[in-house]
């Protein structure tokens, strides 16, 4: 036929040999895959580094050193009137108990024949936490009939002793420390060999309250966990109904005009507002103007609700949008009203998306620190677990991230360990919530 056709025929190539173009394409694809793998690899590497750092720094917070001490509960000192009246017993302060404990420990050490230079019982006090006396006093108030007996107590060790067992404090580092000396550590070594000093799992860290700056060994995370919990209750109660109602209205009922467009743009903007701005807004509006209680989880929850609302609204609208319009048509075609079609058909189908968005919004709020600083939910605030729901919501408290921030800025390295431990607990919560979101989505997802 023509030249053109014969030309083509002569250039006919084999399928078994990749031509230059194909080779180039394949190389480009292989390169792209390598980039992708490298990116995933770097991400995983950072995740591993992060997790190992957190766990290696924080896991020691879950162990605490205790000292076993036999204390003679001397009635002559504790109950001077001798009538075992509980009101009179309460008048004996921790200063009464301190020497008893220290004397008990000294006697015990001497009896065991440990090698140490200490003669006065006061020197023993440096091995024990300042909270030890309170522990013994509480025991006496609970069991006044045991006065006069010698009772064995397991008391919290001082944070320096705890640090020594955990490797944080060394003999060199205490050379100029007036709280403790290297000789104390020699004694601790001997006591540890006999099991009088031991490191055990520290339940009080998970359940307890924050402690004053001088007693890191006593501080716990539990009360701030309760603070976070009550705050999340408020966030859920406020932002879920408002967010879902707003999204349904905007997505299903609102007319398309400049006003709804404006609202839409501003919801997206709100999602990008820095959290500290919400904090100062909460301070001005909820505390200074509305006079809600300062530092209360109620205010914290309201502020975090403002932050969570855009997240919930955006994800709820996306979930509603993803419900096929044919379902709405089907309901309307049978004679369902707009509201019936939304509540009977669209909303159940959008539910997994709404739940996922809500849980992710809550998880975000759970980790938020900055707004809490401004409304006073930071610092050593609550010393006890709240007893009732109302107390939990209204009485001053801290929250997990604020507690971590508070610990991290205190001077003693013992606090550093607590802060890492707090981060582990916070991460466990966040991972649990995100897993819950995935499970809910899987479970309620329906096909159409």
């Amino acid at each position: 036929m023509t030249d053109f056709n014969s030309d083509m025929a002569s250039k006919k190539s084999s399928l078994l040999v990749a031509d230059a173009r194909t080779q180039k394409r394949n190389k480009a694809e292989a390169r792209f895959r390598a980039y992708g793998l490298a990116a995933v690899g770097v991400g995983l590497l950072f995740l591993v580094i992060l997790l190992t750092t957190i766990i290696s720094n924080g896991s020691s917070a879950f162990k605490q050193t205790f000292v076993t001490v036999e204390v003679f509960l001397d009635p002559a000192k504790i109950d001077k009137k001798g009538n075992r009246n509980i009101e009179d017993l309460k008048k004996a302060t921790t200063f009464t108990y301190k020497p008893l404990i220290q004397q008990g420990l000294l006697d015990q050490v001497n009896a065991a024949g440990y090698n140490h230079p200490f003669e006065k019982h006061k020197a023993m006090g440096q091995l024990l936490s300042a909270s030890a006396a309170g522990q013994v006093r509480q025991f006496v108030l609970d069991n006044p009939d045991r006065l006069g007996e010698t009772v064995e107590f397991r008391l919290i060790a001082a944070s320096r002793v705890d640090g020594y067992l955990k490797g944080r404090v060394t003999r060199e580092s205490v050379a100029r420390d007036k709280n403790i000396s290297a000789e104390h550590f020699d004694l601790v070594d001997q006591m540890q060999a006999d099991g009088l000093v031991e490191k055990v799992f520290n339940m009080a860290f998970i359940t307890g309250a924050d402690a004053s700056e001088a007693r890191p060994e006593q501080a716990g995370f539990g009360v701030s966990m309760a603070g976070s919990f009550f705050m999340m209750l408020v966030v859920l109660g406020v932002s879920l109904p408002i967010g879902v109602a707003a999204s349904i209205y905007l997505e299903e009922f609102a007319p398309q005009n400049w006003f709804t467009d404006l609202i839409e743009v501003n919801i997206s903007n709100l999602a990008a507002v820095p959290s500290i701005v919400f904090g100062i807004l909460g301070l001005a509006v909820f505390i200074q103007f509305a006079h809600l209680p300062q530092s209360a989880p109620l205010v914290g929850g309201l502020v975090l609700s403002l932050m969570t609302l855009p997240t919930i609204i955006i994800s709820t609208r996306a979930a509603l949008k993803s419900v096929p319009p044919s379902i709405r048509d089907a309901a309307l075609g049978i004679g369902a009203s707009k509201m019936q079609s939304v509540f009977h058909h669209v909303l159940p189908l959008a539910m997994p998306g709404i739940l996922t968005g809500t849980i992710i919004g809550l998880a975000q709020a759970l980790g938020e620190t900055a707004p809490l600083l401004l409304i006073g939910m930071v610092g050593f605030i609550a010393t006890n677990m709240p007893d009732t729901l109302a107390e939990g919501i209204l009485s001053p408290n801290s929250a997990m991230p604020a507690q971590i921030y508070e610990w991290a800025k205190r001077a003693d390295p013992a606090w550093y360990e607590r802060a890492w431990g707090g981060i582990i607990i916070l991460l466990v919560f966040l991972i649990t919530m995100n897993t819950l979101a995935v499970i809910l989505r899987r479970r309620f997802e329906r096909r159409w």
Partner: protein
Amino acid sequence: MNDMRIMERSVETNDIKIAANKVQVFYGENHAIKDVDVQIEDKTVTAFIGPSGCGKSTFLRTLNRMNDTIDICRVEGDILLDGENIYDPKVDPVQLRAKVGMVFQKPNPFPKSIYDNVAYGPRIHGLFQTKADLDNIVEKSLRRAAIWDEVKDRLDGPGTGLSGGQQQRLCIARAVATEPEVLLMDEPCSALDPIATAQVEELIDELREKFAVVIVTHSMQQAARVSQKTAFFHLGNLVEFGETGQIFTNPSDPRTESYISGRIG
């Protein structure tokens, strides 16, 4: 086109169920339906045919005010259902749609059980007293939609688990369960295979005994097979409306003839 069975079919005249006078539909600036006058008779299948985008589906959706859900859509003119203007401001479209049911192009059962799909309409309209009543309605509707025998053992199974043809018949059962007076069908067979199509067509013919049926279709053979009256739409105009046999054998407008002989479309 060679299917000439229609010639033998007797066409008796029935009461007029829906009368449309000078209906105009606008989508924003776009004039989608121009000056349409149509009388839809009771107990008759009326087919709307025409090329894509000619406005036949749009017009169908004006008959039960489904276009209300589209913000930019505007309807002018009168549409009378049993002499009452359905675009009267006093008319609640929800009440209207209970009387004028609709079956859509794509089968769209609710992601619920087969039973709940059919029972949904009676439930929201309160058409029953006891559970037994509802069971009766569901069975009757499924029987009417010729799907009862296939699903009677799995009424609790999901409606979305059925085949395409079964789903569409389930949607028809769902539509007839609310006891409508008119049934609108928007290309009900376009997503179905020939066997399912034949079943649905047979069904349409049976439904004619109770309702006025309006069907939009792309298939001229289908219009010829199932309908007694045919309306041909072109570019938003109703070009010709008459008895099906006459439209297909002896159209009066040259555009109709071009379309059914395959020259435009």
